[in-house]
């Protein structure tokens, strides 16, 4: 009867809170674990698609983690990759159909990148590293946490690129006309794909200067 007498762990114990907050900074999936970069960069020319993408990834990571964690004792290890892919692909199809139904224009902009959540390494990586060996509730939190860490970077990059590239945020003009009259120009370079890489490089630089323990060995 040891299980019954053992005190139940509170839902938001310190350990569980850590699962949620750690991936946002110190264990960020993009800048530290180097997972899921593929889709992170291509959708960030504007804030809105970046936000929609971020929400989709949070949903997929959270539920994929939850489902795999529930199934973890029934999955034969040899075919686990296929099982994981099937779970992820079904979730992504759901997300894709929902996006097409409710935000069709954004779904057009995201084009193939919604489908590419299937091979987004964050989802696979967290399933392998966490959900296969942990209970459903921590797995769900871990999924949400990693999704949030991913979203944070996506939104930061999207914000910078849209502000300097088009002078707008979420489609609204924020840079006043008087600036343009003084000779300010939108930096069209920011819209181009390579700038996303350079901005992420700079984010990594800032993050690592603030957290020296993340600096790589020579």
């Amino acid at each position, binding site marked *: 009867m040891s299980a019954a007498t053992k005190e139940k762990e509170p839902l938001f114990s310190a350990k569980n809170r850590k699962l949620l907050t750690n991936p946002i900074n110190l264990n960020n999936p993009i*800048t530290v674990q*180097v*997972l*899921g*970069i*593929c*889709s*992170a*960069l*291509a959708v960030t020319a504007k804030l809105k698609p970046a936000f929609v993408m971020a929400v989709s990834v949070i949903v997929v990571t959270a539920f994929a983690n939850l489902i795999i964690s529930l199934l973890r004792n029934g999955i034969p290890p040899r075919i686990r*990759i*296929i099982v994981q*892919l*099937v779970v992820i*692909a*079904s979730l*992504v*199809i759901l997300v*894709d*159909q929902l996006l097409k139904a409710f935000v069709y224009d954004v779904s057009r902009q995201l*084009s*193939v990148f919604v*489908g*590419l959540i*299937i*091979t*987004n*390494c964050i989802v*696979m990586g967290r399933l392998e590293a966490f959900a296969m060996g942990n209970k459903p509730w921590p797995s769900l939190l871990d999924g949400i946490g990693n999704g949030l860490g991913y979203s944070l970077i996506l939104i930061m990059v999207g914000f910078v690129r849209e502000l300097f590239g088009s002078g707008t945020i979420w489609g609204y003009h924020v840079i006043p006309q008087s600036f343009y009259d003084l000779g300010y120009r939108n930096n069209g370079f920011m819209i*181009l*794909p*390579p*700038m*996303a*890489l*350079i901005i*992420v*490089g*700079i984010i*990594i*630089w*800032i*993050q*690592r*200067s603030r957290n*020296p323990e*993340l*600096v*790589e060995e*020579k």
Partner: protein
Amino acid sequence: MQEIFSIFVKSIFVDNMIFAYFLGMCSYLAVSKTVNTSVGLGIAVVFVLGITVPVDYLLNEFVLKPGALAWLSKDFADVDLSFLSFIVFIAVIASMVQLVEMVVEKFSPALYSSLGIFLPLIAVNCAILGGSLFMQEREYQSLEQATAFGLGSGIGWFLAIVGIAAIREKIRYSHIPAPLRGLGITFIITGLMGIAFMSFLGIKL
């Protein structure tokens, strides 16, 4: 013929998987530490893309597209299975990778041992699934075009990873600010390479 050639060249340089779409970045960043391993992974990607894109093209054409099942019977003429494409493509990719792995192991043990663990990893490389999804979105007209696109994207990816690996081997000897070391500088160099590759945009084929 000319159109096939132009799709091929365009997918290598202009629509480069890495520099224009950031596909396959995870393995690109993780495996590009030395030139040798990145050549191995690059060849494997060319190989798998060259096979999966045509196969997925056939599936898309004869099973998934709206009305694609018309060849079976008239009753199926208005069936649209395109919502299944993600799951079908990923299944094809996973099984193709497995198949390619077995074939390579059987016929060329030397290549197999040099590719090592990279072959199975390719199943979750976004560039492969991305290739199939772009093929579907751009509606290529024939099997040859789809094959040219698949091979071209693979070769473009190969060029990119070998290039960055060569740079990373050299950059080990330079003085980089400590927080930028490793990942940070790789991102920035990839960005600069992307800017260089953008000069191909002006080429009209």
